[in-house]
């Protein structure tokens, strides 16, 4: 039933196709970029949450050793 009423819409099948055509290049682009990303940059980003600049922050104390 639905294939009949959808065929009334011009080119409805184009929508799923468009979606793939938008997604795939974007995905491939990111894969290429990620694989070529600079090592120093990646390492800096990875360590961002672990950096500690606050004076009275106790976040770096070793949980296991204290207990």
């Amino acid at each position, binding site marked *: 039933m639905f294939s009949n009423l959808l065929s009334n819409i011009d080119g409805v099948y184009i929508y799923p196709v468009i*979606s793939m055509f938008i997604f795939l290049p974007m995905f491939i682009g*990111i894969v290429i*970029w*990620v694989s070529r*990303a600079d090592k120093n940059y990646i390492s800096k980003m*990875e360590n961002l*949450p672990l950096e500690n600049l606050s004076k009275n*922050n106790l976040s770096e104390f070793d949980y296991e050793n204290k207990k």
Partner: protein
Amino acid sequence: MNIEKFSYDNRIVRLFVFATVLWAIVGMLVGVIIATQLYFPALNLGLQYTTFGRLRPLHTNAVIFAFVGNAIFAGIYYSLPRLCKASMFSKALGRIHFWGWQTIIVLAAVTLVSGITTSKEYSELEWPIDILITLVWVVFGINMIGTIIKRREKHMYVAIWFYLATFITVAVLHIVNSLEIPVTLLKSYPLYAGVQDALVQWWYGHNAVAFFLTTPFLGLMYYYLPKAANRPIYSYRLSILHFWALIFIYIWAGPHHLLYTSLPDWAQSLGTVFSLMLIAPSWGGMLNGLLTLRGAWDRVRDNPILKFMVVAVTAYGMATFEGPMLSLKNVNALLHYTDWIVSHVHVGALGWNGFLSFGMLYWLVPKLFGTELYSKKLANAHFWLGTLAIVMYASSMYWAGLAQSLMWKQFTPLGILQYPNFLETVLQIVPMYIIRSVAGLIYLSGVFLLIYNLLMTAKLGTFINEEFAEAPALIKEKDSLRIGLIHRWLEKRPIQFTLLATVAILVGGFVEFVPTFLVKSNVPTIASVKPYTPLELQGRDIYIREACNSCHSQMVRPFRSETERYGEYSKAGEFVYDHPFLWGSKRTGPDLHREGGKYSNLWHYLHLENPRSMSPGSIMPPYPWLLKQDLNTSTTPKKITVMQTLGVPYEKGYENFANDDLMKQAESISDDLLNNGVIIEPQKEIIALIAYLQRLGTDIKTKNNN
């Protein structure tokens, strides 16, 4: 280098932590109550405010938006300024955000138990509260983006991307799904009807799971897991890849909630394909979390915080594998509408959201009070209680769901249904309902251990109001956009980043919606499908008020086991006047789409008064107040007018006569009941509800009779 001094405000974090724990107790307690009601219906104490139908949305809203929501905000208000090396944009906005959000939760609780609901799952709140949510959400967004803009750290860490994606997508989802026309201050009808309404609702529902329960928690995972393990995330490259893939793909997968319904086939297939693709980015996130602990698993053994986080991430992996599997049409045919789905969401809620929140709280509170956790032993006990509860909950509901579905589908060798009485299949799984409620109670008792532990931790230390920090000012440097450095360029530009993420989520929305809206003009309006009579319309709103759709679907799927049991399968054209759609998502009771004309008015009267008089052993609560309360007919003209605005073809000026027709129909029903020995005035609410139930699905039946 110019070193700047600033501070992190811990008070707002403490407020959100407090709210998280408080609402956890409320949400889970209501969960245990409704779980118990499923085998002990009298637990509503005979009150209309505490029936399963009204408490179920209270449970879901309290857990999702109150418990999980506050946990997200606590996590963000702590991690965001530290990742940005800047204090939050505005302390005042933070306070407005906090109190605004708590006000919304209280309003939600009051309106939901009063039966004021839109009936749309996870979006039940009525329009004035919807507006308030929008305002508070914008306040949160300004505060977050403001902080990011004035940051001292050049790059935005991956956690921040997830926070940003959460903010924009929830905003888009909330607005699109809440487009409704007010009838009164506390009642509205949605812009969409039937198939469109269902599609929009599950686009929302699915992405609320994605962008309220998943992306913010991935952000929290990317901050708190490395913190708790004291080592960087396994792969930052993987995090970039899975972030973009996740936010891009998630938005497409909504239609998988509507497989085998009257939704157009192509949209169903699109939902399935994208759901399967979703495994990849979801597992990317899970593996990234788990592999962070590579070579350090010995630490998990004696660190309860890491234990919570490991189980949380594992539960995320399980739930995101199960989701795509349930999107396969053959699996969906078997398990949709059953308790399997309830189990699926609770693996996510109890495991992923609950455990990650607990892990975060156990890490965070000692930091806020400059001390260490009061008792590791208690935290371990909490961990094991919670884990036991999750296993009990999941396995009992998996069993219940599968067993019941197989019973629904079982035919005798002669080709007739083996269990034609729906109730038989319910009574079979009642023991599983009992196990489930015990599991809930165990999980809840673990939270009390958490509260005690955190209170003692707070007592042990002193609260650090502000943490002082210093960092060099951010030097604005000109770097041009070069291929190969696009993402690095983007990470320095929150506005452009946000815009691109918005585009990513909108593409999916548009491709999904445009054809559906085109279909609208092409859905063959079945000639015999007529708008509801005024009495039926009022009855429908009582059906919505009592949230009958929490337990009864209105969607007969095209399977022989369903057409045999319920009647002709549901067609898209039958729902064109349904503002909102009431297809439901769970069959605790039988489907009602072909209910009209199946039983007499008398049967419905007696059944609503006391379900067990008609169906011995039924777990449906009695609705005696429907016999006592008068129907509010003052709203009829306005309701008709709003429906006309929405395109329902009532004659011009009909609103003036609507109540006359309403009375006539009500009298005919009360006369019929009188002939059968029941004296009831026509203006009682039950008359309207019976009128609606007797109308359900009869448009097509009439046509067949012709």
